[in-house]
């Protein structure tokens, strides 16, 4: 699949995708406790970027990214 190696790469790609077409983009986060993984996915129905997080330190960065994205989505313009 379209997995990226690092969280930073994922964040940049996802942000670019969202800026290009905010209404078409959706961000998905899937948590699988049995495997200890968080799967992040950002798609605009044309392209898709994914990231698999397995470490605790990534969680904080994911939190930040999610709140950033939420702020963008619920903005005025």
């Amino acid at each position, binding site marked *: 699949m379209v997995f990226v190696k690092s969280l930073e790469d994922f964040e940049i790609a996802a942000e670019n995708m969202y800026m290009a077409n905010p209404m078409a983009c959706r961000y998905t986060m899937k948590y699988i*406790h049995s495997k200890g993984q*968080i799967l992040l996915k950002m798609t605009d129905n044309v392209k898709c970027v994914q990231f698999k997080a397995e470490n605790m330190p*990534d969680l904080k960065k994911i*939190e930040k990214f999610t709140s950033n994205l939420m702020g963008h989505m*619920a903005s005025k*313009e």
Partner: protein
Amino acid sequence: MNGFQFILRLEKLASAAKSDSSFTVTLKRFNGHDRPVPREGKPPLPKPEEYMCLMRVHSKSKKISTVVRREDVPKMVTMYAQFMRSNLDGLKRVKKVKSKAKAAKG
């Protein structure tokens, strides 16, 4: 449902999903349109004044969702961050590489 109720239901869903399945959270921008785009010749949908964030969570058996407005974003962000920190705890803790090199040096 409102934000606070959503987070409560989310926590219940997450702990239920821990044992057997996974759960998925989806975020999408929402422009308030609740009708499909009309055909040509019909009046178009009103232009959105403000955008909101649609937040959906689904697990094997349950689905919940909420709409977050601009004013509620900070509150929702805090509650969601708290939820993430307390529930998503199955990840690996990264051990700091003990400086064997340091010990070897000195």
